[in-house]
């Protein structure tokens, strides 16, 4: 469809915008079909109070949003994710760079990364709650935990993937070791760092919900848990719908940021 639009001789709108319009149209059609399937399944196939159709869920979402409850829960969960994600990335990137650049550092820190990456953040929830309580501390700790190892591993892999010729070229163009790191190794690693961060963002969503389900005083996970106690199935589905939407939007924003600010580093697709 895009190709036809691009080559069409009657095209008056720029091909870029036509391409974007096609992408947006595709998304709208895709999501619309999801809602249609959901509606058919809930109304005609299952037809149970335990599986509400999309109309009722959206209605409930509007109601919760009007009361300010939904916005509040979203804000709580997102703040935890973003704080932990930012801290985790800030810790992970320099460690990853050090591991990738210096073999002794790698040998020293590899036991940590290789050990802890097999202990999922969800397994650490109990420990986090015991240590930091059920408030913000434990949630941010868990998000940092889930972020930091992915970012470290991807950053380190990025550093070691810099082709030797890039470094040799820089050296014979007169760059000293510090300049090689700053102007060659670092920018060459950016796509890997961004990929790691994007994966970490996805994991953060998993972790925050799990953590809020187990022990929290607010947040989308808590909202699901509370709704379960009172059998508010509609409310559970609102939370699920919001989670999907938040994850999707966050990932798109991240991608958009990469294209806008780091597109020249041949970004992740």
């Amino acid at each position, binding site marked *: 469809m895009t190709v036809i639009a691009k080559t069409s001789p009657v095209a008056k709108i720029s091909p870029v915008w036509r391409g974007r319009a096609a992408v947006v149209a595709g998304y709208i059609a895709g999501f619309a079909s999801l809602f249609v399937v959901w509606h058919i399944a809930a109304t005609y196939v299952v037809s149970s109070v335990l599986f509400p159709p999309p109309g009722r869920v959206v209605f409930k979402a509007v109601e919760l949003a009007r009361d300010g409850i939904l916005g509040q829960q979203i804000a709580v969960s997102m703040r935890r994710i973003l704080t932990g994600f930012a801290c985790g990335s800030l810790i992970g990137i320099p460690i990853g760079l050090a591991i990738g650049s210096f073999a002794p550092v790698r040998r020293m820190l590899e036991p940590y990364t290789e050990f802890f990456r097999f202990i999922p953040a969800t397994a650490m929830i109990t420990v986090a709650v015991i240590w930091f309580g059920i408030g913000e501390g434990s949630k941010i700790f868990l998000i940092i935990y889930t972020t930091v190892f992915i970012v470290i591993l991807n950053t380190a892999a990025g550093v070691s993937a810099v*082709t030797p*010729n*890039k470094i*040799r*070229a*820089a*050296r*014979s*163009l*007169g*760059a*000293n070791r510090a*300049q090689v790191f700053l*102007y*060659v190794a670092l*920018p*060459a690693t*950016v796509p890997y760092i961004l990929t790691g961060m994007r994966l970490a963002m996805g994991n953060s969503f998993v972790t925050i919900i799990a953590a809020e389900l187990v022990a929290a005083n607010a947040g989308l996970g808590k909202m699901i848990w509370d709704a379960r106690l009172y059998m508010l199935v509609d409310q559970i589905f609102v939370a699920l719908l919001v989670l999907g939407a938040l994850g999707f939007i966050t990932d798109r924003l991240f991608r958009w940021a990469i294209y806008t600010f780091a597109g*020249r*580093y*041949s970004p992740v697709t």
Partner: protein
Amino acid sequence: MVSAPLVRLAGVSKIYRSLQGGDYAALRDFDLEIAAGELFCLLGTSGCGKTTALNIIAGFEEATSGAVEIAGHTIKGPGADRGVVFQGDDSLYPWLTALGNVEFGLRMRGMKRRERDERARSYLELVGLRGQETKHPPELSGGMKQRIQIARVLANEPEILLMDEPFAALDAQTRAVMQQELVKIWQTTGKTVLFITHDIDEAVTLATRIGVMHAGPESRIKGVVEVDLAADERDRTNDRFVAVYRQVHEMIREEVAIAMRRSA
């Protein structure tokens, strides 16, 4: 008139230690002298150690023994006096524009933006990339990327260009064009060039002198052929061109046979 050579390698050996105990001598008693202003082609079969020789001159690798000098000074590691053009495009920086790649060396030595910008632009123009300044390497063809590499090295104004089979990955037509361009650039700038190739045709087309290497291991130069051809004789249908070709071919034929026997 005897002037000191720009590059001098005397009795150079390069031995790679293997963990299994069997050492591999890529070069043994390797001698090479390149005068300023020459376009010297180092010709050899694959695996003969010609890239090793270039890497030693570039300072990427250290000779196990022997003297390695540029302009009378011993080479200790890479330096801006020796610009390297690599075979592949993986030495370019895809996050920089063509201009950014070309001015990289100038930026590293702290040249003012306006000055380096101007110089980089003039070298991009010299290699025929005017108008491509803001493109990034992945947007450009293989031939254009090699032009960026050449401009990047020239902009840095080194004593010598070390070119490691820079056109080997290009298609035949592009390669022929690039060879002509290189000769033109060499004539305009008067730079010294060490050009590595396994292609006799390419060597005879470009070189003022051709150093033919023995098959590896323990390789060294078998002989040097002076290529006394005018620009209009550098054509593979020209009789004098063919004569030089035959002479070089005669020298290398035996080495190819040895190389093939050894790899079999």
